[in-house]
């Protein structure tokens, strides 16, 4: 990363998640996370320089759904604001870029979506090749299962390892007040449960989650004022691969490897990693791509297997690492976000506490 870049840190993070919420609408999920993240930062709402959100109109089945989200932000007087139709981790990237340009020193990022409104696994079939795949209607779980099969066939992982990932994640999720799924089940218990999407079991698949999350970024001295221990972004990079599943090597995540290299993951010790793993088999693939040593704790929050508010899940990974840095539990960590079928596009963010 170029030394000319500004130091930017996470100084506020909030999440608000639920399991199939029939009461609240999207705006009602966003209001508390925006309020709480801003309150944590201590930066007055109207001093926040730039606002960016990430969401997907198709989750709610209507065009321009993201516009409603703006009602929760307090966009008056008018604000500098943008939106990406991507996981909010990429909205955070856009906000980080804006701070780098130099005309703003802080940013509010929020991501939201209610995956429970439609059949979310079916909706994202519309991301597939419109001519040769979409008319077949494979679900996202179907495609993930194909990747799991390929990974097992190539000895990148195995059924027991999947169960161990799931068991560890669900146990960790129990301790996470925001997670909506979580239980105490050993790998053996999980292995005895039925395989529902060969080779995946239900415990290997992230739960349908409604929710929103928000992060506040600040630069330099503003960050030091806003947080006793800011979580500095030392590197943030993303890369995309070709769409077609058959063209890619599904047993590896090349774009994650490239992003990790560019972001400088290997420049220091990785004490914790939060990975955007919506399916257990993605963890060994991503560990390898990120070059994580076997003893690096992955998804102490429980990860997406504990809660998967699509469009906010990647942003939450960044928030979870930042939280542990700010709490002083770790001094350096990696957050990962993904979108597209079978890990097509990946973002890697390296965060670090103040090095005094």
């Amino acid at each position, binding site marked *: 990363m170029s030394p000319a870049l500004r130091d930017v840190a996470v100084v506020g993070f909030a999440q608000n998640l639920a399991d199939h919420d*029939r009461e609240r*609408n999207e705006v009602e999920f966003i209001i508390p996370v925006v309020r709480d993240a801003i309150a944590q930062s201590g930066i007055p709402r109207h001093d926040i320089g730039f606002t960016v959100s990430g969401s997907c109109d198709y989750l709610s089945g209507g065009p321009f759904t993201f516009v409603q989200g703006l009602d929760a932000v*307090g966009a008056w007087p008018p604000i500098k604001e943008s939106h990406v139709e991507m996981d909010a981790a990429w909205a955070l990237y856009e906000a980080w870029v804006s701070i780098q340009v130099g005309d703003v020193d802080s940013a509010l990022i929020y991501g939201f979506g209610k995956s429970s409104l439609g059949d979310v696994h079916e909706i994202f079939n519309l991301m597939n090749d419109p001519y040769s795949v979409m*008319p077949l*209607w*494979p679900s996202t779980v*179907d495609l993930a299962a194909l990747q799991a*099969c*390929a990974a097992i066939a190539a000895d990148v992982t195995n059924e027991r390892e999947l169960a161990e990932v799931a068991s560890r994640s669900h146990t960790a999720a129990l301790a996470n007040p925001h997670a909506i799924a979580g239980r105490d089940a050993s790998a053996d218990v999980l292995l005895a449960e039925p395989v529902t999407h060969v080779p995946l079991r239900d415990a290997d698949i992230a739960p349908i989650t409604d929710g929103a999350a928000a992060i506040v970024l600040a630069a330099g001295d503003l960050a030091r004022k806003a947080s006793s221990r800011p979580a500095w972004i030392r590197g943030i990079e993303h890369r995309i691969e070709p769409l077609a*599943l058959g063209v890619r090597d599904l047993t590896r995540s090349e774009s994650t490897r490239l992003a990790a290299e560019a972001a400088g993951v290997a420049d220091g010790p990785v004490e914790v990693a939060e990975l955007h793993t919506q399916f257990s088999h993605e963890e060994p693939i991503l560990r390898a791509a990120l070059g994580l040593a076997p003893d690096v704790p992955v998804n102490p929050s429980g990860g997406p297997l504990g809660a998967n508010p699509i469009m906010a899940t990647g942003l939450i990974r960044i928030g979870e690492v930042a939280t542990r840095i700010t709490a002083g539990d770790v001094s350096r960590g990696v957050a990962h976000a993904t979108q597209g079928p079978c890990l097509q596009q990946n973002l890697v963010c390296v965060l670090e506490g103040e090095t005094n």
Partner: protein
Amino acid sequence: MTEVLLEQHVLEYPGGYTRSTGPVVGRFLTGLRDGRFEGIRGGDGTVIVPPTEYDPYTAAALSEFVEVGPAGVVTAWTWVAEPRVGKQPLDRPFAWALIKLDGADTAMLHAVAVDAPDAMSVGLRVQPRWRTERIGSIRDIEAFVPEGSEPLVVPSPEPDAEPVTGIVTPTRLDYEINAGIAPSKYLRGLAEGKVIGQRAVDSDQVYVPPRGSDPTSGEPTEIEVEVADVGTVTTFCVVNVPGLSELAPEIPYVCAQILLDGANTAWFGLIQGLPADEVRMGLRVKAVWADELIPNAASIKWFEPNGEPDTPYESYREYA
């Protein structure tokens, strides 16, 4: 405990999306219609199936077609125990597979029709079962089956048929949408013949209809304020476009922004009860309620003049 307000919602472009394919995809689909698989040679010599228009790694436009298949080998598979009937290729449980056709260097996705998952394996050789009626679609293959498990019927192409240039893709998505807590309160008010707006604690601005927050501050609008069902037309237009909505009256009809007495935001509604060319800014109107009141915006059918003198422009000017 009041019932949650839920409504079914269908997102579907009537008739399906009409997608033009361009020459490369068009040729692939024409091949399928003719009972033939074609891949395309990438920059590094690999044969890509299904053919991509552009090299996945160099972005170069590709043009060299290579016939492949019809049989191939499964490189990955999974099982669909509960097919999405009417969407997925088969109505009974089946396998998805990535299939590398003979001569191809990349695998394509399709269904494999077998009775149980134990019939599937990585390395299984499969062959296509073609539909008798083919139109130039990935679904011209009904499914793949294990090689040799049935005769391979190779269709004969129709002579003189035009190349495929497009496909039609029906896309229906179903949702169950909830109203939200703040909108629900307002909608229940409508079911009782009342218009109940909301404001935030620190503000006197009453929002009708409310969406949960005061947009200027982001604060929740927790205080309910009943407003009148009578108000002023602040601006309007005469709609002369037929068929915009099932709910639209005969053209010409008037759509207006109406500032209800006590509210600080405008209501978008229909104006009826007078000729369209007599509607004017400042007109005083009252809501005409439906005979049967339900927690839905349709409880107010439209607004009609209530006979009061027009509101002077200056007093609603900031809303117009």
